[in-house]
């Protein structure tokens, strides 16, 4: 098994992500649409959660964990508001991009194949 780990985020990138979280958190939420990812959790007895998807969930998981660790280097006592800000920033950046179909399945890019 390959044992690998990613290098820590460069300080500049941590700064940029924190600045983005700050920017998003300062929006006026009264009138804007705010994309969010919500995790589905089955609490019923005998529930057998399915796994699945196209791998985008694992990308989100990795980015969330990485963002939390980066934030912790600046502020050790993280709380619920920090999770909200992290997920808000994650959704703002990846809500659309991770919904795009894979290149070969994007029918508008391959009209000959689709027809």
């Amino acid at each position, binding site marked *: 098994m390959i044992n690998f780990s990613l290098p820590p985020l460069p300080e500049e990138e941590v700064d940029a992500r924190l600045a983005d979280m700050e920017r998003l*958190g300062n929006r*006026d*939420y*009264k*009138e*804007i*649409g*705010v*994309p*969010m*990812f*919500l*995790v*589905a*959790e*089955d*609490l*019923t007895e005998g*529930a057998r*959660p*399915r*796994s*699945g*998807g*196209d*791998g*985008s*969930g*694992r990308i*989100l*998981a*990795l980015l*969330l*964990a990485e963002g*939390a660790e980066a934030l912790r280097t600046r502020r050790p006592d*993280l*709380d*619920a*508001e*920090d*999770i*909200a800000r992290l*997920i808000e920033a994650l959704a703002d950046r990846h*809500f*659309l991009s991770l*919904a*795009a*179909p894979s290149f070969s*399945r994007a029918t508008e890019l391959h009209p000959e194949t689709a027809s």
Partner: protein
Amino acid sequence: MGELLLPGGFDETLAALVRGLSAGRVLRVVNFHATPSYRREEYRRQFEAYARLFAPITPQDFDSAFDGTWTDARPGLMPVLFRVRDNVDVMLPILEEFGFKGWFFVPSAFPAVVPDVQRSYAKAHKLHVPARDEYPGERIVMTWDEARDLAGRGHGFACHSRSHFDLRPDTPDHVLWDEIHTAANEMRAGIGWPVEIFCWLHGAETGVNPRADEMLREAGFRYLFSNFKVQRLA
């Protein structure tokens, strides 16, 4: 953003979210509060873009969006709206133009508040209203007649407690009863059938108040929407 409560610590919550995300158990939601007409074009452009990437999550296929049996090649999308009048007047035509179903989260006492005091009710209960009042002297809340019509057209509803209530660990039982059971009854009477989704102000999840969790199940709610999760209760 208000005060968020977690049932456990930061690391425990983060670990649960990372596990859920990595298993692909993700629902995609866009939250709207007020949707004033001067932002109509902005909303329309957004849903035009969403329609290229997402499929609508409807009340009929919500279970499959939740449990991982979703079959559409596109991910599902839930536009969540918070019951104000301009959601019906401005946003609804846009949603229907692009084939989406709205999900209306209703504090069940709000529609019955008389128009003269709806603004002060909203202010007292932390309900967002638009910066610019587009209905001076008139109601600002969706009516139950409108809600029944929307439900009949396939849009979804959730109970947002009775009074837009902020659940705390020590909320007494008689208050919980009103915010859960009375709210469930008012939703059923208002829409015409039971509502299965519940959501607290500030999005408390299960475990913040276990008495509330049990009462939600007793009242027939199957799902709890919170800040970071959708939890199936029954």
